[in-house]
């Protein structure tokens, strides 16, 4: 569904992504793991059209995304849940969700949008409870659910999740992960970017490891979980076991 071929992106004069190729098949959950600053968010922003690609191509269902405006890319079916949630704090939960469906109002899909509200509330019952609450007052986990719900209101085919577990308590992370699994079971395709490598690989089918803008490793997530380089760098394995 998504095919990225050999892309370079720059942050001023620095090459932030170097020759990155990555793919996500329909109905897959793919994890992109790496340290802070490795280029994970940069990649999602490049897919969404928020930053330009200076070399290489991005294809979504065989259509080239290079040069398209972000809103055109959303229209094609890609929705991003940004790092740090970035919900519209002064607005209510309901208003946030409505805004998520913005492009669809233009298409006069009012009936479908109402159905989607139901679906989102089924997925995240707590949001129905807090429908009229100002979203800035929600807890971290609730805000994350709202951010995901908002992205889902655009009825995307591909969901880009940027660090959904960031700043959340472990119990909440588990809930979010369960949600991701649920979404996949309902036919969604997900590209998940995470610093919490273990959590990401547990829920993903495949993974890519990125270091300083370069893809170092790819494979099935169960293989990456037992890969020694991944364990040392990202899974916080006890160093004593290796060095003694």
């Amino acid at each position, binding site marked *: 569904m998504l095919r990225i071929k050999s892309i370079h992106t720059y942050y001023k004069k620095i090459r932030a992504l170097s020759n990155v190729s*990555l793919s996500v098949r329909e109905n897959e959950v793919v994890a992109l793991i790496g340290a802070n600053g490795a280029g994970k968010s940069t990649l999602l922003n490049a897919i969404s059209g928020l930053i330009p690609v200076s*070399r290489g191509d991005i294809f979504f269902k065989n259509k080239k995304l290079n040069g398209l405006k972000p809103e055109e890319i959303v229209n094609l079916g890609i929705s991003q849940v940004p790092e740090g949630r970035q919900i519209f704090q002064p607005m209510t939960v309901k208003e946030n969700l409505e805004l998520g469906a913005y492009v669809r109002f233009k298409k006069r899909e009012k009936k479908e949008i109402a159905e989607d509200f139901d679906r989102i509330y089924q997925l995240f019952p707590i949001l129905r409870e807090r429908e009229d609450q100002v979203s800035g007052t929600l807890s971290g986990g609730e805000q994350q659910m709202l951010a995901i719900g908002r992205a889902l209101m655009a009825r995307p085919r591909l969901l880009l999740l940027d660090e959904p577990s960031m700043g959340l308590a472990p119990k909440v992370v588990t809930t979010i992960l369960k949600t991701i699994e649920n979404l996949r079971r309902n036919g969604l395709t997900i590209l998940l970017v995470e610093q919490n490598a273990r959590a990401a690989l547990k829920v993903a089918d495949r993974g890519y490891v990125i*270091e300083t803008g370069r*893809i*170092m490793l790819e494979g099935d997530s169960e*293989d990456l979980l037992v890969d*020694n*380089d991944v364990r040392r760098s990202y899974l916080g394995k006890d160093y004593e076991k290796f060095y003694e």
Partner: protein
Amino acid sequence: MNDQPLEKIRKISWKELEQLKLERFQSTLNRVYQNVPFYHDRFKEFQLDPGDFASLEDIRYLPFTTRKDLSDNYPYGMFAVPLRDILRIHTSVGSGENPAVVGYTNRDLANWKEIVGRCLLASEVSPNDIIQVVFDYGLANWGRDFKDGTELIEASIIPMSHLPSEKQLLVMRDYRTSVLVTTPSLALHLIYTLSFLEFDAEDLALKKCLLLGEQFDEDTRMRIEKGLGVKVWGAYGLSEVPGPGIAFECRERCGFHASEDHFLFEIVDPETGEPLPQGEFGELVITTITTKAFPIIRFRTGDRARILNDSCPCGLSLRRLEFLPERTDEVIVIRGVKVHPVQIASTIRKKLNGSNPAYVVFVSRDKYLEMIELWISVDDSLFSDKIKSLEMISETIKKELQDILGIGVRVKLVEPPTLEPYREKLGKIIDKDDSS
């Protein structure tokens, strides 16, 4: 029945495979650049950066890796992971002064199981089959790989052993072996041996035979099919890459499907190193794209082959290789084991404390089995009036070569005039059947 090794690749579309190859190629370049000093230096030397390789075709700008490079970096110079990540280490009977030492991480071992398992599944092996592996000691690594691959696809394995041919046949008969994995020359040798025993091929439960290690023509295939009452499949492998079954015949048996999800295959002109147009025969060059411990970039195999681009009736999207018998290098293949003149030269030098007598190496055949026959000229540097010390010389050289190569060697000390007819071919390996 675990048929995943073959099924997962059967379903893949050409576009998906190309993307997969590109991703794995690029991440391999990033890893070797970072972890293997030999490759890092090469990149720098050619002023290249892994980021420059935007497509698979760009691989042509990378330098080759030869057997000599592997030998020069003995023992662990080409490993891309720390030693503690290596689960298995084996020596490849390399073709240089030093052998090539190869390692596997846990992931590599799993990959090899899959590669070999796929090769077996393509030969229609099922969990009902009992596989017996018969190789010379020099291919012991392949014996281990076949044990692993067999276990993955849930068939039964009688692992490689050092039994003589008669005993192998007895095991085959009594244990009801249904699949024989061996080299063409060993298969012929077994047929020959069988003719002296009290039972014949009909008493065996053999149904299939998988041949590797040497090329064979359709004539040989038919002889083995007739002689053992089996259907014969072939597979291709290398000891350095390392391992058997990286290309294999399917039920159509019209070419060797290459496991392109694990390796990149190129055909280049052996003289210039330039890539050849599609369909032309040239030297096969292999790059690993899933190997972690011992990745190799553009390894010159010395085998002559071409890539067939048309689709195979069996439906697999993996392209096929077609081989020619002649090699492009000085390596000789004897019972599946690769022998390079350099190994023989350095052994003689070592055992004779630096003297450099003239010698010729023959490949002779005895009951279909190839042997190395080394004729060394006893010149003044070697001459001794003690017969015992001369005998010692030939014994130690013979023992050392057999240990290194894992195949039978005969050493003969001769008077200088005997080598006169071969003065053009001193130090080289000659096929006795060819020499006049």
